[in-house]
């Protein structure tokens, strides 16, 4: 007997993704949708997408979704969660959204221990606007606003937001993973499951930072972009559990 062993998850609408070929966003979308399904929380989950490449996330997730202004997802999620504490609230944000324009909202939501789950996609550039320098752009990395490569003296060094958030007392679980290989994709799904479970248990702020390939703006083949995460990006942003208050 032949069985269907892999198909589109229930909470992912059957809409073609607008993302570029080889983009990590839609892998992460799928993992989040799978986790929502497996945890049985699809009918009580509310998502808050960002401004950036994932701005259209509401066209894909088949759960309630409410738009936030650029960088403000954690504040919007705070408002939703405080009114509906029994629902599951997640934000989905890129590195520019969360670690530049939305730094204050993110740090203070973590510090208040808002019981929300933040999915932080780090592709080390502003993707939607055409590949400008992001707060996470690596030193030496070329972007449209650092044509000679990011220079520490002029541009500052890449910021490790997850590490900063780990210093807040309200952050319960923070892990950095990647979606550049099968092994890392499986780990990412485990991390997302853990993060949502932390919220379901009411333990506090959970965040999964996911290193994601951006072949278009990195000007690389999709396979090389995945390799770059292992060889370069993880040197600055190592994959690990950064904070675990559940242990």
């Amino acid at each position, binding site marked *: 007997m032949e069985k269907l062993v892999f198909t589109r998850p229930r909470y992912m609408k059957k809409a073609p993704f607008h993302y570029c070929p080889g983009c990590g966003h839609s892998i992460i979308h799928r993992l989040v949708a799978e986790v929502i399904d497996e945890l049985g929380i699809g009918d009580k989950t509310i998502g808050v997408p960002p401004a950036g490449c994932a701005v259209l996330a509401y066209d894909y997730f088949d759960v*309630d979704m409410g738009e936030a202004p650029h960088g403000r997802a954690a*504040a919007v999620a705070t*408002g939703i969660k405080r009114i509906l504490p029994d629902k599951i609230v997640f934000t989905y944000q890129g590195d520019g959204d969360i670690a530049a324009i939305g730094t204050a909202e993110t740090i203070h939501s973590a510090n208040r221990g808002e019981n929300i789950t933040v999915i932080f996609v780090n592709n080390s550039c502003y993707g939607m606007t055409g590949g400008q320098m992001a707060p996470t752009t690596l030193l030496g990395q070329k972007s449209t606003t650092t044509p000679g490569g990011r220079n520490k003296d002029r541009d500052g060094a890449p910021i490790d937001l997850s590490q900063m958030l780990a210093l807040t007392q309200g952050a319960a679980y923070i892990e950095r993973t990647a979606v550049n290989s099968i092994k890392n994709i499986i780990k990412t799904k485990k991390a997302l499951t853990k993060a949502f479970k932390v919220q379901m248990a009411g333990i506090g702020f959970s965040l999964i930072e996911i290193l994601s390939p951006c072949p278009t703006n990195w000007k690389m083949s999709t396979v090389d972009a995945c390799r770059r995460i292992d060889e370069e990006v993880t040197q600055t942003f190592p994959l690990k559990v950064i904070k675990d208050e559940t242990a």
Partner: protein
Amino acid sequence: MNKKLLMRGSQVIGEAAIRAGCRFYAGYPITPQNELPEFMSGAMASLEGGTFIQAESEIAAINMVIGASMAGARAMTSSSSPGISLKQEGISFLAALELPAVIVNVMRGGPGLGNIAPSQGDYFQATRGGGHGDYRTIVLAPAHGQELADLTEKAFEYADRYRTPVMILADGMMGQMMEPVILPDPVNLDTLPPKPWVLDGAQGRPSRIIRSLILDTVGMEEHNWKLERKYKMISDEIPRAETYMTEDARLVVIAYGTAARIARGGIKRAREMGLKVGLLRPVTLWPFPERAIREMSRLVKDFMVFEMNTGQMIDDVKLSLEGRSNVHFYGRPGGVVSTPDELAKAISSLYYRQNLKKEG
């Protein structure tokens, strides 16, 4: 009927908001409105299902209000002029996302950091939308303690009815002054009309999206026209103005909020001098009570706009009159509060200059 209480303006807004069903307040400290978040922190704590958050910024506060509104709560934030500038991004989103919310601006002197004295310098910002894009904000201008209570209640009602942000435009004077007030009865939250658009998890229904990004230009145009139809409806339904001694007036002062109270004093003194002067006080600044002013122009040929700024509402008065009458201006910006005597002088000087005594 509820008891008459002596209350500070900021507290009246807070108490009236809670009685109107406000269950979410987020704000950031700024003078001269700190008494309002301070009051809300205590009041929400003692209220079941009430949330108070001291936000990390004005921007975070308005965005928390966006979230709470999405989740179905009656939500409010407050600030003063520079803080309201910071909230404009969120107010534009509230308008675009068609979310109800109440924003209180206890105006102070500006521009920039300005000072903490009462001013009306934010009229343009409030009535023109303030943030980016083609939208309007309902703006209510209370002039005394009782109206702070009544208009706060109305603000929540309008916000829900029209799914749009409503601003209460007060000033440092209104916020600080203690006056007798009869508070309205608390609303029963269960009797409020249902909100079939809230995000509360797609249980037993299709999932919902609240969004303002409409990349398709025709779709965006349609969204703008839809908002415009709503604004037209609001313009038909809620403009309000109050008149005082206008029956035989040859000169009518147009003023709102604190300026209107000063104007009343000035008008009383002018009447004692035998001048036929009245007051028209817009209660809604947007929609502006154009019709009331236009109708008055059939009998009155001279209007004096009095504002605590260098002349902002005067534009709306001129637009309402479309050249039918003379429009004069008297104003003091920067937080200077005119006295009724000063205004009486301004009125009488104008009265004689326009030769109104002779004709009368």
